[in-house]
């Protein structure tokens, strides 16, 4: 694992670089894929941009809200570059909400926009895997398999490698499906199902899963729920497409 890339006097944090690369690749793919789904690329790109900005600001503000008394004494710390002082879950929620509201106000077609964004989501998944590989996060359970890697004091499943392989597979499937004629939302829902199945499989090998009860890993239960919803929605939309033709 190489969390730091030392270039002379400059120490670059590789996980952050991979995530930035993911955003760059994602933005490039949005421009490329939007016309295919008859979505204005510039509007969709600006929606992604505002969503990201809102997510970052929201994550910092949400973190600061937990420690209001501390931040009131030093408000300039709100602009700190320290990645540890963010609330990621709240940031994602705020970013998605802002993107959704802007999308509605600019009358972007909901499902077609999600389809146009799907290759970006899939590509970003690969870069998240690389970020995990460089930081050693999302590590596996101790294992005796021949391909186990030495990490955090034990030989473990290389879950970061599994994650990258599954994400590449999902990207390949999405890349193939994006040219298949179907109904709006199909591509996004197909990726959502693939992502849920990937997480379901992967989580079984993870050594850092949050556990709910009886040893059940909560990300797997969430993945099952996402999968069930995805199956139901894609079926309903396929019926509408068939009956509406």
């Amino acid at each position, binding site marked *: 694992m190489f969390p730091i890339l030392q270039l002379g006097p400059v120490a670059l944090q590789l996980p952050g670089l991979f995530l930035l690369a993911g955003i760059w690749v994602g933005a490039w793919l949005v421009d490329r894929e939007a016309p295919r789904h008859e*979505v204005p690329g510039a509007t969709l790109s600006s929606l992604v941009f505002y969503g990201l900005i809102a997510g970052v600001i929201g994550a910092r503000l949400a973190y600061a809200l937990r420690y209001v008394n501390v931040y009131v004494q030093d408000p300039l*710390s709100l602009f700190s570059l320290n990645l*540890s002082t963010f609330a990621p879950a709240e940031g994602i929620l705020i970013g998605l909400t802002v993107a959704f509201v802007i999308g509605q106000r600019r009358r972007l077609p909901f499902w077609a926009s999600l389809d146009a964004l799907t290759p970006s989501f899939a590509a970003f998944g690969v870069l998240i895997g690389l970020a995990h590989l460089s930081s050693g996060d999302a590590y596996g359970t101790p294992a005796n398999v021949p391909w186990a890697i030495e990490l955090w004091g034990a030989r473990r499943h290389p879950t970061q490698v599994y994650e990258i392989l599954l994400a590449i597979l999902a990207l390949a499937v999405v890349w193939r499906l994006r040219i298949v*004629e179907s109904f*709006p939302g199909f591509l996004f829902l197909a990726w959502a199902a693939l992502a849920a199945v990937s997480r379901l499989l992967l989580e079984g090998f993870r050594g850092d899963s949050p556990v709910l009860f009886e040893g059940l*890993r909560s990300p*797997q239960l969430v993945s099952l729920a996402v999968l069930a919803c995805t*199956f139901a929605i894609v079926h309903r939309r*396929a019926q509408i497409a068939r009956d509406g033709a």
Partner: protein
Amino acid sequence: MPSATASERGPSTQIGAPRPRFRAPSTVSAFIAERKRWLAISTLVLLAGLAWTLRSAVPPGGTSPGQAPSPRVGFAAPDFTLDLLEGGELTLSELRGKAVVVNLWASWCPPCSAEMPALERVYEANRDRGLEIVAVNTTFQDSEGAAAEFAQEFGLTFSIVLDRTGEASRAYQLRALPTTFFIDRRGMIREVVLGGPMSETTIQTMIEKLLTEE
């Protein structure tokens, strides 16, 4: 989530004519729309997923990832015994029961000097609440004289230990200076900050939850 009707009115700009409500049904649509077949496929996949979820459930006692010491969040902080700058020894595990900040630094490292005053202020404000700061000087790539001069210059009152052989730096897999570990009262690492400098606010928010826990 908006309804399909509301969300698919189509863009009114740049593209020209609004898109049709749906395209002609494709083979894909027809396949998925067939109720019995789709229900069977969905049920099969969900049952397989459920079986894997049950099969891969965490065994009793296996829920804590950090029983083995390792320098990452969720694991027990690797122990060390090092000489103190002012004489005597310090063993990290003997600080169990207190919230501990382990900061690895060197006197020649600009971000280290930039964050030291903040560490000192946080220490002074919180030591009565059970905070300990252990500043590990990476002496194997620094010097004891420089470390002592540095401590005097900044008026540091917390513990400064000397890692002469690099043993502690290796145990903590030091890759950047400064690197800071926030350790709870049970000796578990709760946060790692690679690089710096950290502001006083950042340090205070990081220790706040550790100090409020029993």
